[in-house]
């Protein structure tokens, strides 16, 4: 089947830290794979588009190894509760696998489907990784590109993995990963593309002379490491990864970032890691190039910083938490819903007052603030009171790494507050409008 890309967006932290060959996106400690994914979903231009019926989340750095994160993304992005949610957390290939599954859902009448993928760099063992998320809305008609899942491959091949309790991925011999793992699987998938699809995509400009049956479509490869992916891609005649040296490798989100950046011309996008390979044929439609250019600007943007502060020690900080409370108040916490009364949104929603639930505006202006140096959850926490654009009031932390002033325009951004009691508590913080 072929589905269409209806909208695409990225969430790339604006801080960029220098790396050996370029720079990478660096998130603050209060972002994680969920908050980045929510930001990417919220950044989608969904105006006039149908509401998604499904959400697929791909990440090798999900906050919960078991128990799920996709439902949090659905709540914070206000996607409604009549949604099919699932997540793939196996290898960086899963970003592309999610597109295949979405395509199947759409073909079965279960679309449109939101696909989002996110990655947060682990402090050890991920020198080339960056932080970021990508979201795609996939459906049937009127899109930015036609997406056709191609061949897939699976074999037992360990290049990078984690056992239960591992925080940092284990890696096998780099030479095995680089020289055999990705190249072997990607090569098999590329070969299958040639065999199955003598003319899978329309002609493109950047094909290697020996691309053969791929007929000029650029071959883009995302491997278990940027180095291995790049080597295989060049061997297959691809143009090389334009994002890696600007964002770092974004795990399961990286294949989707490559997809959005490829919308200038037809491409065969291959993701291969952990013995799992996947191909997606990408045929841009007329409006695709504009989105690709916008994404390229975001990839190239950001602000250079020397480093991003390490998470605060949080000595003695062990917040009360309760799963029943978190569930009961999820509308207030995650969807920012208050009660509409006399044209105003009362927040937090007063107990016992019936009324239409309405989400708060996500922009406003700072009424007052403080920088608090004694809050045990951070070295300094900036708290601000904001008059929102809908006339309501909000009080919250300023996002880590950000500062605001009285009178400044700010926006509400999803962030991770704490993990008291072992439950990751998400909420909204404040950040300047840029």
């Amino acid at each position, binding site marked *: 089947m072929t589905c269409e890309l209806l909208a695409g967006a990225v969430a790339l932290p604006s801080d960029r830290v220098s790396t050996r060959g370029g720079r990478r996106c660096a998130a603050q400690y209060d972002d994680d794979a969920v908050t980045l994914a929510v930001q990417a979903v919220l950044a989608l231009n969904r105006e006039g588009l149908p509401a998604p019926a499904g959400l697929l989340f791909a990440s090798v750095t999900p906050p919960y190894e078991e128990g799920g994160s996709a439902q949090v993304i659905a709540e914070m992005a206000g996607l409604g509760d009549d949604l099919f949610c699932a997540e793939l957390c196996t290898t960086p290939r899963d970003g592309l696998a999610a597109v295949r599954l979405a395509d199947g859902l759409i073909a079965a009448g279960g679309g449109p489907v939101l696909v989002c993928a996110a990655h947060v760099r682990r402090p050890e063992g991920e020198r080339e990784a960056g932080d970021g998320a990508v979201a795609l809305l996939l459906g049937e008609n009127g899109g930015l590109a036609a997406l056709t899942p191609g061949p897939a491959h699976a074999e037992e091949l360990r290049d990078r993995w984690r056992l239960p309790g591992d925080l940092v991925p284990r890696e096998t011999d780099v030479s095995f990963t680089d020289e055999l793992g990705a190249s072997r699987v990607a090569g098999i998938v590329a070969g299958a593309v040639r065999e199955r699809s003598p003319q899978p995509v329309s002609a493109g400009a950047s094909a290697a002379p020996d691309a053969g049956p791929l007929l000029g479509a650029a071959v883009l490869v995302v491997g278990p490491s940027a180095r291995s992916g790049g080597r295989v891609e060049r061997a297959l005649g691809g143009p090389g990864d334009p994002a890696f040296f600007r964002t770092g490798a974004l795990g399961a989100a990286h294949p989707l970032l490559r997809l959005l950046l490829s919308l200038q011309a037809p491409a065969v996008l291959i993701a291969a890691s952990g013995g799992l390979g996947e191909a997606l044929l990408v045929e841009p439609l007329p409006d695709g190039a504009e989105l690709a250019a916008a994404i390229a600007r975001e990839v190239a943007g950001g602000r250079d910083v020397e480093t991003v502060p390490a998470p605060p020690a949080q000595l003695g900080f*062990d*917040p009360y938490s309760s799963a029943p409370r*978190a569930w009961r108040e999820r509308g207030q916490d995650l969807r920012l819903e208050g009660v509409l009364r006399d044209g105003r949104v009362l927040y937090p929603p007063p107990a016992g007052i019936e009324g239409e639930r309405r989400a708060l505006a996500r922009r406003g202006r700072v009424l007052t603030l403080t920088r*608090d140096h004694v809050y045990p959850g951070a070295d300094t926490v900036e708290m601000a009171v904001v008059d929102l654009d809908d006339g309501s009031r909000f*009080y919250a*932390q300023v996002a880590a790494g950000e500062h605001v002033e009285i009178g400044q325009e700010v926006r509400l951004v999803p962030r991770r507050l704490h993990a008291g009691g072992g439950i990751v*508590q998400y909420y909204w913080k404040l950040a300047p409008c840029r």
Partner: protein
Amino acid sequence: MPIAGEVAIIGSAATRFGVMHDRGYLELLAEAARGAMADAGVEQDDVQAAWLGTAEPIIAALLGDAGTAVTEALDFAPRPVTRVSTFCCTGMEAVRAGAMAIAAGEHDLVLAVGAEKMRDVPPRGSLVARTANLTHPTLAKGRTAPGQFALLANRYLHQYDCTVEDLAGVAVKNHANAAHNPIAQYSDPLTVEQVLRAPRVAEPLGLLDCTPTTDGAAAVVMTSVSRARELGRPYAVIEGIALAVVDGYYAGFFHDDNDYLSFRVTREAAAVAYRQAGITAPREQLDVVECHDCFTITELVNYEDLGLCGRGEGAAMLRSGATSAGGDIPVNLSGGLQACGHPVGATGVRVIKEIADQVLGRAGERQVAGARRGAAHTLGGPGVASCVAVIGAP
């Protein structure tokens, strides 16, 4: 019958306020309660009921979590004891509850005692850390007590003719006053420069803009005015006492009728207490005020909310010297929370005692000559509760 004008304070006492590692909660409570009964000239057996104000028993092994602490400390069985808790209004609520029992005719001699043991844990492990952990998992995360008043301070500095030096001036004034208060936690004078150089707590507030954490207890004994006359001992009259509550806790931060420049709840409580006491021009009709200076900004805002000056005029009033010792309306001659200290549950009782002592002419070196009527004020939570009492000479 109403409370106003009908309930008398016939005895009061307070422990020393401060960090007292050698004194436990029950010991402090007992010292204050027995001192108040002795001051009233009554035997414990004659006291029919008691109210206990303790705000944060969770930092003192849950002692004071119920009125039974009074029973234990005083061997008070089987008489009824009720614990009340309304944030920093807790102590005044104990007094108000006892006064209501007198006014209702249920009892004719009652005890109200406030006690708090805050320094069995270090300051950083005290209220700030406990509340940071135990408060609402989303709505209050990032909130501290100094942080919530710092929101007001920054807005006030932005909006009005007020500087950080003015804020510091509150601490300087109150520390100077505390030099004449034998129970005060701090009695050394401060300079504006010292206040401004102190480590920042929640900007713009520094360490010396903030009340300390304190151990202490205070108590009053109350009866009806008619019985007080029969006893033939000095007494002060509760001319008015009112509690106002305008919100829950966390929600107060989010409500758009909060201008972060004042506390509506103080104005509501003052309006009722002043009406009960027949006060229409507070600055002219009051001789002395004890108000809730938990942070320096709070005192300036209290001037306005208690009707001592207009909105935005708090700093100018401070600068004029009107609220200093010798001014026309001295405020916090005890040193206030800033320097006398702030054992939360005890504070509301202590400020009632301070004003009662003033109108009885027994405030020692702090005495305002000829004082006949004063006001006591507490403010609770992020400005969601307030208690105002007007205490007068008979």
